[in-house]
């Protein structure tokens, strides 16, 4: 589909290029992770970084079919997981769309000129993703629900 040309593409191009070069030389893991995102504070992705760089699309595609057709949503290879972990935040701590210029997905896809069309349909920020806590609690009475605990970092659960 018609994709808008990025006027800032040159800047991103240069930046990403520099980062690539850096990564190639010094094996700087996580050099692409957007500052302020959850991923920035983690050692590596759900798989080793090198593996993710080359194979993330395969993992996502496999997960996509497992989720849509088999209903499996428990694995760590979900696109929603990518978004929630890799989305950067702006000055006001609002998440920035992951496919925005210079953001995690777009920066690299733009550099490699690979079409990124996940976000034709998928949310680009973790939006409404707290449903599972809120609604699951409200419907615990429906039975067959196991209880898992809340994890860390639940501050600022704003809607």
């Amino acid at each position: 589909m018609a994709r808008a040309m990025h006027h800032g593409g040159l800047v991103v191009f240069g930046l990403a290029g520099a980062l690539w070069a850096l990564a190639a030389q010094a094996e700087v893991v996580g050099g692409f992770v957007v500052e302020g995102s959850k991923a920035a504070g983690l050692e590596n992705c759900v798989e080793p970084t090198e593996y993710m760089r080359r194979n993330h699309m395969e993992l996502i595609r496999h997960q996509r079919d497992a989720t849509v057709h088999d209903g499996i949503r428990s694995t760590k290879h979900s696109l929603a997981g990518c978004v929630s972990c890799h989305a950067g935040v702006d000055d006001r701590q609002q998440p920035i769309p992951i496919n925005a210029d210079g953001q995690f997905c777009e920066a690299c896809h733009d550099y490699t000129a690979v079409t990124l069309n996940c976000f034709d349909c998928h949310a680009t920020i973790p939006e409404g993703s707290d449903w599972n806590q809120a609604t699951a609690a409200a419907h615990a009475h429906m039975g067959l629900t196991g209880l898992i605990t809340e994890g860390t970092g639940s501050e600022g659960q704003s809607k």
Partner: protein
Amino acid sequence: MTDTHNDKETAVDNGRRTFLGGAVGVSAAAVAPGLVLHELAQAAPRTEPVTDLHRWGLLIDTAKCADGCRACVEACEQENGLNLQTRPEGADPLKWEDQRAVWIRKVKVQDNISGHVTNLPLMCQHCANPPCVDVCPTGASFKRADGIVMVDRHTCIGCRYCMMACPYKARSFIHEKVAEKLTRAPRGKGCVESCNLCVHRLDEGDLSVACADACTEQGHGAILFGDLKDPNGPLRQALRAQPSRQVRENLGLNTGVRYAGL
């Protein structure tokens, strides 16, 4: 809009990872140090492919469906992000009502002879023999093993043949660019979609649907969600207790949504 889910999300995800499968039927509670205990239950997300041991369905008691109430419709819109659709600038408002996606409709019919008025919610009927699945050229329209009829957006080419085939006008085509969408309900221009029985809830082990919950909350209780294959489950019990029908029964589609008092 949310701001700082990121931390929590990943933490939950980590929790899930270590907790695979074992969570069903087990209750466990642990409180992370230094944090307020939320009274939130996290059902276990599905780890195994869905099977045909279940077939999800609805029983709608039209006698309990209140005139003028739109609670189920509004709950569905909230749950599935349908309320986030915006009318494109310049679109005719009346035409837009028939172009925006709708998963559940409040329908009112009157008997031609007796004049009796019946209210009912109408959504995808989740047929056992769905015409939309038969006609889809790419197999994007499919029936899951547990009876849910849905669209795989990744292979939908937007030909709209399924909409031609559906006897219930249950499907919607996305006519416009969608700016805002929920993580749990992806949506984009050029694909077809319809009610999926809140599949994101079911897959997380939360056996409920938004419309039935809203109806119960309103005190009407006209929509009952359950497993058509569980002989002792609430749905089958309710179906046994009263006569019910399928809309367009003559087509022999064996719908997963049944209506009492129609």
